[in-house]
């Protein structure tokens, strides 16, 4: 199969959906000639013109309100917030408006919009540009949360997100836009709520998503050479969560490690632990182990920055500590 970059997969998803449905349009900062901060939209302005590739002022609330209002009136906007850190400027629109409108209006209105953004550390851009805030969205009823790790997944899931009738928070990772991976030429979509066993194994289950999935796979690879068999499960969508796949894997391996780049305290990882505790306590041979970000903002210095988020070694150590 041909291999394309993660960001190309994003672009292909947009093109296919924009061609499929004239109601789909893009908005956000620097998405015009600039093509977006990570150049995922390169060429789309030229292709679709400024009405469908809406380059906006630096007005995060109006960007998301722009998406919500358009969604309420028949369009399917894909709004980009350049960094998930900047969502902090518009949480009202996300949480009090987009997430709740359908509920509050007794299902009278729907908000079929996608909020595309990216997060995570690893590029030395420090505390206000490196956060992993998925735990916030995960906590809010009414939001779907998608965090694809591979070109294949990002394409199939973005297409599904655009077709969804309710708001989807679509979080990419800043370090993986140039990663290449197999993506079929033919059209496909990936349903929400279906985890992908990225690697089968029998000794321990590793639950990981986004950039951390790649570290988990690298760890599993290395551990395999030492004779340790890890099952690596990628939820792909945190909401809806494929609880069954997770529990089934735990029932098989009886051991679970949850890996997440986000600050551990109050994280999705803690919640995954809690879910497994609820549903598969008796199958656990050892307490579930979280391997997460330190309880710290992300520093500039590379050495410190690296120390703040899980490494392949941390994951390997956690696996070994469990056996």
């Amino acid at each position: 199969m041909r291999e394309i970059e993660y960001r190309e997969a994003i672009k292909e998803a947009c093109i296919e959906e924009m061609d499929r449905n004239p109601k789909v349009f893009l908005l956000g900062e620097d998405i015009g000639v600039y093509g977006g901060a990570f150049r995922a939209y390169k060429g789309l302005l030229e292709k679709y013109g400024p009405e469908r590739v809406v380059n906006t002022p630096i007005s995060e609330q109006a960007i998301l309100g722009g998406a919500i209002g358009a969604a309420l009136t028949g369009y399917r906007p894909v709004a980009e917030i350049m960094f998930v850190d900047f969502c902090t400027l518009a949480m009202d629109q996300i949480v009090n408006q987009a997430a709740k409108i359908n509920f509050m209006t007794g299902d009278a209105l729907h908000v079929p919009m996608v909020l595309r953004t990216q997060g995570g550390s690893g590029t030395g851009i420090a505390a206000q540009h490196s956060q992993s805030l998925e735990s916030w969205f995960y906590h809010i009823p009414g939001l779907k949360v998608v965090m694809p790790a591979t070109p294949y997944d990002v394409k199939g899931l973005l297409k599904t997100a655009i077709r969804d009738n309710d708001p989807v928070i679509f979080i990419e990772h800043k370090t993986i836009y140039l990663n290449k991976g197999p993506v079929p030429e033919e059209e496909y979509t990936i349903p929400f709520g279906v985890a992908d066993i990225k690697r089968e194994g029998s000794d321990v289950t590793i639950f990981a998503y986004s950039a951390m999935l790649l570290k988990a796979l690298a760890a599993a690879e290395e551990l395999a050479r030492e004779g340790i068999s890890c099952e690596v499960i990628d939820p792909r969508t945190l909401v809806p969560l494929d609880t069954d796949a997770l529990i089934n894997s735990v029932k098989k391996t009886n051991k679970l490690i949850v890996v997440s780049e986000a600050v551990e305290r109050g994280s999705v990882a803690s919640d995954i632990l809690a879910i497994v505790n609820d549903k598969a306590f008796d199958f656990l041979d050892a307490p579930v182990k979280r391997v997460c970000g330190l309880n710290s903002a992300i520093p500039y210095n590379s050495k410190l920055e690296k120390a703040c988020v899980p490494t392949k070694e941390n994951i390997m150590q956690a696996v070994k500590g469990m056996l």
Partner: protein
Amino acid sequence: MGKISKEMQIEMLKKITEIRRFEERTVQYYQKSKIWGYLHPYIGEEAVAVGACMALKKEDYIISTHRGHGHAIAKGADFNKMMAELFGKSTGYCKGRGGSMHIADTELGMLGANGIVGGGLPISVGAGLSCKMEKKGRVIICFFGDGAANNGVFHEALNMSAVFKLPVIYICENNLYAISMCARESVAGNDIAARAKGYGIPGYKADGSDVIAMYEAVEKAVDYARKGNGPSLIEAETYRFLGHHPNDPALYRPKGEAEDEKKNRDCLKNFKEKLIEDKVITEEQFSEMEKEIEKRIDAAVEFAENSPEPELDKFLERVAINQ
């Protein structure tokens, strides 16, 4: 006032009366604890909503605020569904989930009230984008208060709408107070209409106690918007006759201020007297109209009273969708 037909004038008077009577009744039922939570009566401000909505076509949109009953009724909302919602019943606009602050009606293009001050401002941008993309000449009116005019969302929405020349009519209902905060002390420069200049768009004041003045001001802005010239900002000078909510004695207002307003700037009393003087309507016809309105409100109360509470099971099923 030449071009405003007698029928239209009577319709305006009728709508004003509808809102007044409806709101009086909600206050009553609030005091009887049939309605609870937050209720923000629109009494005294009716001419703003009515003048504004009369300048719209049915397919045009409005977006509203926490003080939203007047806007809904002016756009044609159903008394039964409104009252049932306020009574928390399953037959209400929001199936009892939303209450006073979340009434929306897709068929009427009423995109929703809002519990967040200024929450509708960013959303108006999106509705404006969609009106513009659709190219059917639709427009949207965005209502908000003097308090909201100091929030960042005001700025982002007006700027972005102006940048894209969106067909949005921004109507600031300056009723002099935001809860206890007087606009003279919170609106720097004390001239909301003047803020339009900062966005290069038309801005003007209109007498919010005069439905004809409101109609004419809004009609001008609607016309301007339909022609593709972009947004306008209208500052409607109005006054909240009651407290912020039914339990607020509004002690923060100078003595006599409310009494003066009620005496001199009562949009219902003044317009009714004018139409009688102009022989558009007789005192008897007005009484007749009023009675008919009261009857419809009685019916709405009965409908609300007799409607079932939402079923817990169904609600829980709905909740499960979020998982």
